[in-house]
């Protein structure tokens, strides 16, 4: 089952802390979005494997854009 991880707010992708194929645990920090001078981390909602990363560092994202796809 695949799960899309969405951007919680509009901003710039400050860092991506995983690569395709990585296994991540629930609550691991996988992406950080910078907006309004603050850093908002995005955490894995469950254990899984990173199947696809759809953004790169520096990208502007809108709220609810898909950041990556997690296979669970």
């Amino acid at each position, binding site marked *: 089952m695949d799960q899309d991880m969405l951007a919680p707010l509009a901003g710039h992708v400050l860092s991506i802390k995983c690569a395709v194929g990585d296994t991540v*645990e629930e609550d*691991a920090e996988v992406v950080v979005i910078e907006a*309004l001078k603050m850093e908002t981390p995005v955490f894995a909602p469950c254990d899984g494997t990173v199947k696809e990363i759809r953004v790169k560092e520096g990208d502007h994202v809108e709220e609810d854009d898909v950041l990556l796809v997690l296979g669970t």
Partner: protein
Amino acid sequence: MRRYFEKMDDLGRELRAGEIKRTDDNVAALKEVEKEVDAAVERVKTTGFSTEKINERGQMTVWQRIEYLVEPGTWCPLHTLYNPLDNPEDTTNVIDGIGKIGGKWAVVIGFDNKVFAGAWMPGQPDNILRVTHVSRRLNLPLVWLVNCSGAKLPDQEKFYANRRGAGTPFYRHAELEQLGIPILAGIYGTNPAGGGYQGISPTILFAHKNCNIAVGGAGIVSGMAPKGHFDVETAKGLIDKAKEFKDEPPGTVKTHYDETGFFRYVFDEETEVLDALKEYMSEMPAYHPRFFRVAEPKPPRYPVDDLYRVVPLEPKRVYDFEQVLARLVDDSEHTEFRPGYGPEVYTGLCKIDGFLVGVIGNRQGYLGKGYPEYADYPGIGGKLYRQGLIKMNEFVTLCGRDRLPIVWIQDTSGIDVGEAAEKAELLGLGQGLIYSIQQTDVPMLCLVLRKASAAAHYLMGGPPANRHNAFTLGTAASEVYVMHGETAAVATYVRRLIKEDAAGRPLEPVVEQMNELAQQYHDHSRPVYCARYGMLDEVVKMSELRNYLVAFAGAVYQNPTSICPQNHMVLPRLIKG
């Protein structure tokens, strides 16, 4: 009113395994800053003569006196690092805090007799004024441990005179007494001149047998004959005169116990003085806690040590404010005031040690689509917007109506700015909040959890803008500044950059200055710096924050000057609807 307070809404949740795993670095970083604070505190504790040296003289140190006097586990020190005029001894030479004595909360202050025999020193008057303010604001007895050799004479111009000088505490003592707040003084050692007035100005004087209090000391009595200059002949005369001077210093117990009766009691042992203070404190007027408690005291359901994982040291990192509050208040319960309105600010009722308090804090992170409602840009927690300001104005005013003390938990980067913000009346609403606080006569505590910045620091219970703030605490994550250093560097140098660029000159020198300014802001906003210069009254370990809240709530409800019956309160009913 049991249905309102015995079981309130649950707050927070346990940390998940992943959260614990990814926050190990934050725990280490916060504890590293706390180590720096500990090291600064240790310098204050060990300044001057050693404990052994003082004990060899048959005296206890001020630290030993406080330890003997105050009930274990209740001491909440304040102003430990305060040294605003940079004394090389790292202290203003008074040690103070809140603690329980004889079962009652009191404000305690004592001269550090290891340093110049407890002399007046630069910065000390302001320290004492802060302490007398705590006593007045919380309506708590003030207990002095007087042991003051008078002014440190080479530095007298820095503290003797002036509007907030070394004489000011004396009228503050009179002011406290006129408000019905007693001042008890245990008196030790030689207390001439300023020390004499420190001794006489309290309400009841408990003397150690070897102490004295006097208008002037033996040195002044034997040598005060100005001739315009000194020479060797005069110096030799002074030596002879001093050697001949055999009298006891003026104002010993023979005079002030046997003759004037200024000393109510005299004791042979230092500890007997402290025992007598304990006995008097046990008789101080105070309500039994059950009079005001709304529920049985309970610890938070989640460990306070979780705060090391919940609060990121990195100021740009967002976190969940409710997770913080859940680790500070009884049973991790609350009743929120106007949830959903003004989402950048939390307002609600919580219990601390069974006592009801109002809590106001900055939420962090994205505030959701369409907020603030007056602008086309997104809102983020830490900032203040129109609804949050209106909500705080309402909540503060209602807390005043119900006589509820307020705990402010600040982590704010400021008020929203720009033309939309002006049209939304934020300037007026901000000052309106200061007006609301000013007419809300209840004790307040401000905790600078992380950022205190811009006017938001003033109007969220910060000490520069209100007289109801009893004290302001900081943490290892605290930083206090008018704006972030990089923002300040841009504001200061951007026009210069434009000019230099237009003239074809290199930008590196200006950039260097910008970096220097940003670094200066960083250095001057660290917790130890802020405590040294009085922006914070104490830097408290995350694990000890709850102790201070318990002391604050207990102190506030010990003997309040104005009360609201629980069955007459409006705020809980407004929330319930």
